[in-house]
């Protein structure tokens, strides 16, 4: 554009943009797709196949056709485009408000790899000779994660972070059983701010769980660990940094206490964004660890799955890895299913291959220096954001400690002053186009909110996010009813959350909804 044209534009009476984005979410009042179904309507008119009909065995035959919605192509497309517009996520919003979940950018090029027919059309029962390429990706990703963690072997079979934790518990159980010590070692020690999946998986595996509470400084109470560790200890399962963002500097001592008692030490590294290339689980003495590929290695969360988890173990635990394992003899890749001490399968076949491919591509694109830069940027971003957030009157960080990659903050001060709760701040923040989250169990920090910027977001993103929270906090002081009445610019207004806690009402499927609400 020429300078002359630019000048004339500058003279146009266009109001400057206000400091905060005038966001408004799409609102389509979109019905559920089943409600849009009309009998006989079709997306594709499939021609008659021309082959003779064959009678199916009664055991696999449906008594009645599936109740699929009947719609045209346009209406299906329009439905899902509308839903995508009524959404908030990494691709259109500053998604730093989902701390502990880690919403980082998933590079679009990696999606092209997984939609490539050579990946997308693989069949899990193909002969090994025909899938050497994908086995190589599994093998190479395993070796990379082994190097990142310092561990000996890695299983990429678990389909989620919690499945990886469960695989680790299963291996801990098998290890002690193999030594004739399984009956006696019936306790697993964890900490209050370790991710709750650790306690949950230990319990599912039949263990009694002992939880270490934080001391006055926010660290797990090491004296309580000394009191708890003993001949009944199977393992310590611990997250570090914990969900508060605080890194436990005495972690090696924790591991030592448990080892001395004959237990194993298992590191929840689901979120290793503050650690990549800086510390390694094996170097602190851990026997097992796991990564969530979607938290650290950029694969999509996939809305509750299938995601991908990696279980990493020391040499002593290798025999117990889920199987089959991918092996390489220098020339050829093969699957080894002959593993008599294995804990068995964590899911059918190899694992969630598309996510394995994405994580492999992500690591290959970054290299070792790039991974370290991810960690350094994530920590820098978090501390920059923390600095901005703590300047907002009424916001605080519970313990006066440095943080790694995330912080659980508190609006307690603001709440005491205005009566506005953290949840209400979050709902109002959504009016400015950002997501915000409070906390999961344990609800120890009053009026909590948990922010995790990762390495994906720019300084401008963090400035904008902090400015939105500062604005909403200011609104809470000036006009608390305005904040309580939010959202105003969103797809829907307030929802009554009681149905989420009531099995008589909740409806995860259309079938359940029909039964519970339309009958």
């Amino acid at each position, binding site marked *: 554009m020429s300078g002359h044209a630019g000048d004339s534009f500058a003279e146009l009476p266009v109001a400057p943009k206000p400091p905060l984005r005038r966001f408004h979410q799409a609102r389509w009042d979109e019905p559920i797709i089943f409600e849009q179904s009309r009998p006989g309507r079709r997306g594709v008119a499939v021609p008659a196949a021309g082959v003779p009909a064959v009678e199916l065995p009664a055991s696999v035959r449906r008594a009645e056709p599936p109740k699929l919605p009947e719609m045209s192509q346009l209406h299906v497309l329009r439905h899902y485009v509308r839903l995508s517009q009524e959404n908030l996520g990494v691709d259109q919003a500053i998604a730093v408000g989902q701390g502990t979940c880690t919403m980082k950018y998933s590079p679009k090029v990696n999606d092209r790899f997984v939609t490539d027919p050579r990946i997308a059309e693989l069949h899990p029962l193909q002969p090994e000779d025909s899938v050497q390429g994908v086995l190589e990706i599994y093998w190479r990703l395993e070796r990379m994660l082994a190097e990142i963690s310092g561990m000996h072997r890695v299983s990429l079979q678990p389909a989620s972070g919690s499945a990886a934790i469960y695989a680790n518990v299963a291996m801990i159980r098998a290890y002690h059983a193999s030594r004739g010590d399984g009956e006696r070692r019936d306790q697993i020690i964890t900490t*209050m701010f370790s991710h709750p999946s650790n306690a949950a998986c230990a319990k599912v595996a039949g*263990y009694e*769980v002992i939880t270490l*509470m934080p*001391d006055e400084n926010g660290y797990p109470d090491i004296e309580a660990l000394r009191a708890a560790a003993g001949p009944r200890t199977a393992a310590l399962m611990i997250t570090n940094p914990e969900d508060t963002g605080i890194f436990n500097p005495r972690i090696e001592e924790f591991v030592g206490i448990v080892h001395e008692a004959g237990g194993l030490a298992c590191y929840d590294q689901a979120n290793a964004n503050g650690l990549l290339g800086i510390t390694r689980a094996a170097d602190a003495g851990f026997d097992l660890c796991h990564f969530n590929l979607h938290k650290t290695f950029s694969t999509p969360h996939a809305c509750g799955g299938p995601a991908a988890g990696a279980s990493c173990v020391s040499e002593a635990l290798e025999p117990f890895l889920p199987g089959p394992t991918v092996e390489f003899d220098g020339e050829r890749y093969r699957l080894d299913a002959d593993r008599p001490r294995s804990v068995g399968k964590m899911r059918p076949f190899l694992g969630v291959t598309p996510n394995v491919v994405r994580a492999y591509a992500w690591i290959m694109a970054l290299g070792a220096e790039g991974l370290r830069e991810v960690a350094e940027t994530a920590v820098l971003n978090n501390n920059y954001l923390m600095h901005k957030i*703590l300047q907002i009157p*009424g916001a605080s960080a519970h313990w006066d400690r440095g943080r790694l990659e995330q912080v659980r903050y508190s609006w307690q001060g603001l709440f005491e002053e205005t009566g506005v709760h953290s949840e209400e701040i979050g709902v109002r923040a959504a009016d400015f186009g950002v997501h915000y989250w409070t906390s999961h169990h*344990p*609800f120890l920090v009053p009026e909590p909110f948990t922010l995790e910027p990762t390495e994906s977001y720019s300084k401008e993103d963090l400035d904008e996010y902090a400015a939105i929270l500062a604005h909403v906090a200011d609104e809470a002081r000036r006009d608390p009813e305005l904040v309580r009445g939010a959202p105003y610019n969103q797809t829907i207004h307030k929802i009554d959350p009681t149905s989420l806690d009531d099995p008589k009402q909740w409806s995860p499927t259309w079938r359940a909804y029909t039964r519970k609400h339309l009958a």
Partner: protein
Amino acid sequence: MTSERSVTSAASAAPRQAPARGEAFTVGLVVNPVAGVGGPAGLKGSDGAEIQRRALARGASLRAGERAAQAVRALLARRPGARILTVPGPMGEDSARAAGAVPELLRIVPGAPSSGKDTTAAVEAMRDAVDLLLFAGGDGTARDVLDGAPSCPVLGVPAGVKVYSGCFAVSPATAGAVAAEFARDAPAPGGTDGSGTYGGTVEAEVVDLDEEAYRRGAVSPRLYGTLRVPAVRARLSGRKVGSSSGAPGSAEGVAAEVVARMRPGVRYVLGPGATTMAVGRLLGLATTLLGVDVVQDGELVAADVAERELLDLVDGRETHAVVSVIGGQGFVLGRGNQQISPAVLKKIMASGGLVVLATQQKLAGLNGRPLLADTGDPEADALVEGYVPVITGHRESALYRIRSAIEEFPS
């Protein structure tokens, strides 16, 4: 005097201007002499002349006056120049004198025995005359203070059976220490900084239970209002967390674990509370919500026992005390379960041990502060100090630090 003193919580480093020692600092003192009298007698409160008469008949002694004196002693040790303005007789004067103070007296004549109306009248008479009001009693007393609409900040000396309100210090000595460090003109609550401390004063809730309903077994704390208290949060009792706010069903999980751990031939003393009540329910026994019950081998040995009975029941056999954490303060002994007296506790710890029941939420709510024992006898408290098993759910426990309230907050 020009020396500056800091009036901050234990966690804060921010200095704040305090009044110089030479300036007059007047503390009002109101004692409910019969507060707490129903506790050791198993009467779940002390409201009403009839209950007080029955408690005294059961061998109870008046201890609120002594607890008030402990607070005044701690106050004067730190701030010898403080003036005490109080009520003639057992409603304050006796405690002040027992602590070595020479109090100034209000010109009012309380009833004999005194009642809540006298507390309210004393608070009204002190309006604009004191910098800080110390009162000794329980939740009922706090309500009476509230009715008197005090013009200055207030601080409770815990001396009642029910101490659910947030306006109480964690112990008498702490009340004295907080009072000594309090500066009337300190800055009003400002923004919260990273350490989560506050300046000046904060609002504390006054809650109380209907004692009649409480004796029938219904715990329904009611909020009566708020009092301004010195903002020394680390040393004030947090408002108790009612059992209804915990995760639903968790009491059943805790109870299942308690029952799973019970051994034949061993006696278990179940303290008051919804969680211990769930243990009784799981055993199919008619244990009480607010009393202390004794069970063994799936049978109810005795229900709602007073201290004297309990002493006999725990004698000469392995006995474990199963107690719950009383709300957000962390007390497991000495609040609401005074029947488990120092003498009873000594016998239990000699033969068995102490098990605490609490949801993780309740433990987490302590923010790293220890569980507290305040039996009134440091020797008995010392027996339970260390790491105590806390059952938090089915196949779930924690090991948690327990300290004597006297050790934790030395005077």
